[in-house]
């Protein structure tokens, strides 16, 4: 199995504060991967480590089988669109295309110019006067035209309005359909990811809560509703992610290997958002419990 991203015990520390700690993550190639988690989970730090903007304080990370940004050849294999899609405000769209051409030996000028034309961008317009959506599209164009094997996007649509958001994701999907490229895309909005991703990683407090193909996640997670019973009484192969109880009734969100056979349960299918929120809530509960233990010990 070849990984586009392989992190082992990865950590990044600023002074005494760990922005990312003990992160183990492996992402198989050929997917559009959604990296989702609450603010402060370490998504941005993880992505900066993956593209070589940061170096690890602990552990290691390999991207496409090599250390990130090890040399210009490795840099050319990874495209990156940073948060808030930075561009040179005083330079024109045309200047940005020349920038890409000069900075990348594998630059695909024809496709870049096609994209700019499709987007109806004026080549002479200064990037500083573009709308947020146009700027994001320009940043995506530059990242895509270098023909990377892996494209990393950090919250690319976070500051866009719903229409620009949809158009951006549409552009991204067209690019992915073009060739054998892997994409890692972070967001805290599951609905955005649901539209484009076929693989999902939930990151909370540097820890991977769940990672897998979206279809598998949807197929293996169910909500069970039935008469009140204890979570421990479930058969092997059914792991409770989230549970809530009233006096007479239990609701459990479980991950199950096979079909749920117990006729006492009403079984409901789940949306991706349900699953993500369950894992994020689960992690938050665990964190609170951990804090309580620390208080008592």
């Amino acid at each position, binding site marked *: 199995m070849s990984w586009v991203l392989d992190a082992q015990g990865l950590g990044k520390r600023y002074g005494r504060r760990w922005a990312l700690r003990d992160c183990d993550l492996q992402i198989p190639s050929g997917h559009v991967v959604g990296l989702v988690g609450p603010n402060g989970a370490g998504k941005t730090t993880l992505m900066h480590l993956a593209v070589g903007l940061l170096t690890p304080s602990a552990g290691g990370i390999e991207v496409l089988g090599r250390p990130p940004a090890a040399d210009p050849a490795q840099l*050319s294999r990874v495209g990156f669109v940073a948060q808030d899609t930075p561009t040179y405000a005083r*330079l024109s769209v045309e200047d940005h295309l020349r*920038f890409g051409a000069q900075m990348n030996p594998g630059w695909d000028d024809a496709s870049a110019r096609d994209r700019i034309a499709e987007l109806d961008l004026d080549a002479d317009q200064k990037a500083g006067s573009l709308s947020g959506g146009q700027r994001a599209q320009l940043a995506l164009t530059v990242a895509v035209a270098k023909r990377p094997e892996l494209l990393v996007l950090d919250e690319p649509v976070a500051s866009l309005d719903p229409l620009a958001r949809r158009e951006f994701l549409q552009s991204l999907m067209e690019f992915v359909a073009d060739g054998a490229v892997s994409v890692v895309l972070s967001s805290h909005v599951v609905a955005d990811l649901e539209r484009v991703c076929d693989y999902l990683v939930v990151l909370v407090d540097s820890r991977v809560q769940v990672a897998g193909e979206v279809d598998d996640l949807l197929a293996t997670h169910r909500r069970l509703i039935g008469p009140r019973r204890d979570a421990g009484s479930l058969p092997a192969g059914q792991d409770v992610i989230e549970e809530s109880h009233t006096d007479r009734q239990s609701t459990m969100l479980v991950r199950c290997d096979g079909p749920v056979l117990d006729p006492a349960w009403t079984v409901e299918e789940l949306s991706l958002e349900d699953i993500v929120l369950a894992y994020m809530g689960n992690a938050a509960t665990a964190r609170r419990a951990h804090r309580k233990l620390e208080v008592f010990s």
Partner: protein
Amino acid sequence: MIAFSWRQFRTQGLIGAAGLVLLGLILLLTGPNLVHVYDTALAQCRASGGSASACNNPVISTDSKLQVLVLALVLIVPVLIGMFWGAPLVARELETGTFRLAWTQSVSRLRWLAVKLGLVGLASAAVAGLLSLMATWWFSPIDKVNANRFGAAAFGVHGFVPAAYALFAFALGATTGLLFRRTLPAMAVTLVGYIVARFVVAYSVRPHFMAPVTKAFTLNPNAGWGITDSGSGIQVSTDPPDLSNALIVSNTIVNKKGQTPSASFLHTACPGVPGVSGPPPSPVGGHTGAVPAPGGGQQAFQQCVNAVSARFHQVVTYQPASRFWTFQTYETLLFVLVSLALAGLCAWWVCHRLS
């Protein structure tokens, strides 16, 4: 990479070049007249027996406002380059986040930094150097009459050393911008740091580039003299002899044994001179400390100077005029080396501290 760095720098670079061309034209148009004044007015004045200072006046007063402007430009352009070309060079990319765009292209960040520093650094040195050489050419008639281009202030607005100042100011701006990650504080620190560095070098380092020449002169009672009574005792001083275009390092009045005039000698030789206060330390008889008559202060002072001149001589250490270009080379090398060290710090910081 070079083409893109030029694109980023283009507007600033063109403004600098346009300024140079404009000033160059002004100097080209006014320079010949200055030479003409020097050749004719000075020669006429000297032929008719005018004093040296009076004969210099026509040259010194020609285009006097332009003289001030040119000197001011040569003086401040290096630090302006440091503040407006150096400080934002990396800081702006860090402030706006574009470094994340630049550092994730297929170019190592070391090369990115080297091209930026190299291109804009060379432009900085070229602009300040050309400006200074133009000014030096234009000023040559004035320098001939002033005979003071080795002076602490004049040295830095002559020859090619301003190119190195500009390179240093640029490197200082780029480094502080990188360290602070903010343009504005980097500009302020560059301004202060540059002024401090120039002062320290001009007054504490430059005089020691080479061992100065030591020479004894007989004292000239008609030169400018001063007698002061500070807390540490009475001191007498006089202007250095007329060493054209030399850098005076020290200037002392000593006797054959190398001793400066003692307090008791001055009290005896200089009664009634303002500044030599109080009665002599060991009054003999009644009225030794004669009270000078009104208007007699001048006379008493001259007597004092004559007495000192008779018993003492003047020892001057100085850097002779012939060392001017050697010193320009040394100071240029000093500032270039410091600039290279700053560039090295930038490289290390970019590779190890911003990751």
